[in-house]
């Protein structure tokens, strides 16, 4: 090619023009709001210089009817492309709030659809960096159909490639359903919002005063609604956490998760584990201390930390291999299963199953949360999700019963007959239909009523119940668990059990899909 010719000149002019579009003034606008620009976000996410943009020069669609101004920008407010994150191929799109508020027109939508289809075809994860005012009003129905196309792609890629949304600004109206459909949602405190209708409409229709943060800020979605799983205080940490998070996941549903080289520095026998569960069954403890003592050092990455906190979920590594951890948290609401923790657990288990991540369950559960509130809100159908998810999962599944394993909750938490591959119990385990107090009150109701000293009799019966029934040894004799183990050897036992299950293969008969209770 003649580099001084007119073709080359046109080429350089275009390059210059697009450089001007992403100007320092535009960056300043974002920075003053505590936000980064779309390009800064992408360069943080991708390995140095590895991001390749496509469709950089497309321009907005022509409007069928003239109404409102459309900025003739390059790229139509979204940057799409691919690159390497820690050496692995990742696709991404980043909406640019400085161009027409990152609003979604049909060209913008088509760019996103194109990259989604590429990611699916290549079997690579796709990251959405969302900072958008929503559908572009000027383009009307075309913009809405654009959203529909994006939703369709997300749904049809679900369970094939990991899809992660990072909310870095507003996501309002129909736009919220794109992140809602993806596997995990990251948000940033104070600068990102998600709501179906904004504070202004809420004020107009319901006369309720609420701020954007109070209605759909990161904290609200992480703690109350469960829409967002991971939140951080600033964008850099959000994106760095996302990079770490990606290191646990395989690229698609036929690959296994990446393996990190294990330096062998974590001992397989850990005597600290013997002292972490208090002797008094009414005393709480933090199950995360136990997780951290079992898995590779500092490898536990918790998901949905603030939502349904009576169940802890997250990814970790054992000898460098990714596992999913599901653990009851005695420190929060005694570790009960309630509506929030059941739905959280079920969704996490299904993600692990879809992406070949073995599941380790640590069980200390007093049961399902009783009460009018929970029953009326549907704990039955929400609790059923956990059952469904565990039984449906074909990845290796191991349970360690740390202490309480009572009633329906025992069944739900990956019990052997529900399809759990290995079931271990610590000597401190209490496995029974219900706790001692409840059982004694039912079985010895008449005797207790007739007794002269009911308190004394009850105490005696409770002790008898603990010795005779609520222990792990009967379940062990009957084969409902595989082995009662020394807590100190938990890591060793779990690693060798997962090794034994490495080639687990379950043939599932063809069907359209099961009908999980929703």
């Amino acid at each position: 090619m003649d580099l001084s010719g007119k073709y080359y000149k046109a080429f350089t002019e275009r390059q210059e023009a697009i450089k001007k579009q992403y100007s320092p003034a535009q960056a300043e606008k974002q920075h003053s709001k505590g936000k980064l620009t779309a390009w800064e976000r992408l360069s943080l996410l991708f390995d140095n210089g590895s991001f390749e943009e496509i469709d950089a020069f497309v321009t907005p669609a022509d409007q069928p009817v003239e109404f409102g101004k459309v900025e003739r920008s390059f790229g139509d407010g979204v940057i799409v492309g691919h690159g390497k994150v820690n050496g692995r191929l990742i696709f991404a799109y980043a909406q640019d709030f400085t161009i027409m508020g990152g609003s979604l027109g049909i060209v913008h939508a088509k760019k996103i659809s194109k990259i989604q289809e590429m990611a699916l075809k290549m079997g690579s994860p796709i990251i959405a960096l969302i900072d958008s005012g929503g559908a572009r009003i000027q383009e009307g129905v075309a913009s809405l159909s654009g959203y529909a196309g994006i939703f369709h792609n997300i749904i049809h890629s679900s369970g094939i490639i990991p899809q992660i949304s990072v909310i870095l600004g507003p996501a309002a109206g129909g736009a919220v359903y794109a992140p809602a459909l993806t596997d995990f949602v990251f948000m940033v405190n104070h600068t990102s919002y998600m709501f179906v209708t904004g504070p202004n409409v809420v004020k107009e229709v319901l006369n309720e005063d609420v701020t954007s943060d109070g209605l759909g800020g990161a904290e609200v979605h992480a703690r109350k609604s469960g829409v967002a799983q991971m939140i951080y205080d600033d964008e850099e940490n959000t994106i760095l956490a996302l990079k770490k998070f990606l290191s646990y996941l395989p690229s698609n549903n036929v690959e296994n998760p990446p393996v990190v080289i294990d330096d062998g520095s974590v001992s397989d026998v850990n005597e600290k584990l013997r002292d972490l569960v208090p002797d008094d069954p009414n005393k709480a403890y933090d199950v995360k201390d136990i997780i951290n003592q079992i898995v590779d050092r500092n490898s536990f990455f918790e998901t949905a930390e603030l939502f349904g906190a009576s169940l802890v979920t997250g990814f970790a590594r054992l000898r460098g291999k990714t596992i999913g951890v599901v653990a009851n948290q005695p420190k929060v609401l005694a570790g009960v299963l309630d509506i929030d923790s059941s739905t959280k657990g079920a969704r996490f288990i299904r993600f692990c199953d879809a992406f070949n991540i073995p599941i380790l369950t640590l069980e200390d559960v007093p049961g399902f949360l009783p009460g009018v509130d929970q029953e009326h809100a549907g704990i039955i159908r929400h609790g059923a999700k956990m059952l469904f998810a565990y039984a449906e999962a074909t990845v290796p599944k191991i349970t360690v019963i740390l202490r309480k394993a009572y009633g329906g909750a025992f069944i739900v938490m990956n019990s052997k007959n529900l399809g759990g591959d290995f079931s271990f119990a610590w000597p401190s385990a209490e496995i029974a239909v219900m706790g001692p107090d409840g059982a004694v009150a039912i079985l010895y109701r008449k005797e207790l009523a007739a007794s002269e000293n009911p308190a004394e009799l009850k105490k005696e019966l409770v002790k008898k119940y603990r010795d005779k029934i609520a222990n792990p040894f009967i379940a062990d004799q009957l084969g409902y668990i595989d082995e009662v183990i020394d807590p100190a050897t938990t890591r060793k036992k779990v690693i060798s059990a997962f090794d034994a299950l490495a080639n687990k293969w379950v043939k599932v008969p063809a069907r359209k899909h099961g009908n999980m209770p929703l």
Partner: protein
Amino acid sequence: MAQDNLNIRKLYALSSENKRFCFSLPLKHNIRIGKREYEVQLKSDEKYGTYILWKNRKYPVEIIRSRQNKYEILFNDISYTFTVETPFSIQRMKVLSTTKGKAEKELIVAPMPGKIIDVLVREGSVVTRGEPVAILEAMKMQNEILSPVNGTVVKVSAKANTNVMKNDLLVEIKL
């Protein structure tokens, strides 16, 4: 295009009491606290685990928990919590502190029906995020009710040895 990673030359460790320590990148053995510079080394070996070497003495250090840029460490048997911040995030905190608006209050309510065993704060107590304010017995377990925020207790409705219903007000905290 703007492909360079954000050129970060400095990192700050921000303690839970808002004390700030600056480190320049790449990390060296010298750290500056106030006006004085100290030479310390972070080492680890089989025998002692991870420790800080200062003036030829070893001080054991252990990361108890880490969550992205938040760390809880044990140093000389005292636990410290701090966050690692960049110049940009420090700047951002300043921006947000001016736009956050007026201080609000936080109501801590009973998360489930149960019996209050103990109330751990009084009116005027200063609480930090994650600090227990009361102990609620429910599901035959003693649950610590934790403060989700930093602030000052302005009202205590919870009384020891009384039953509470779900969503009953326990403690009111002013941010």
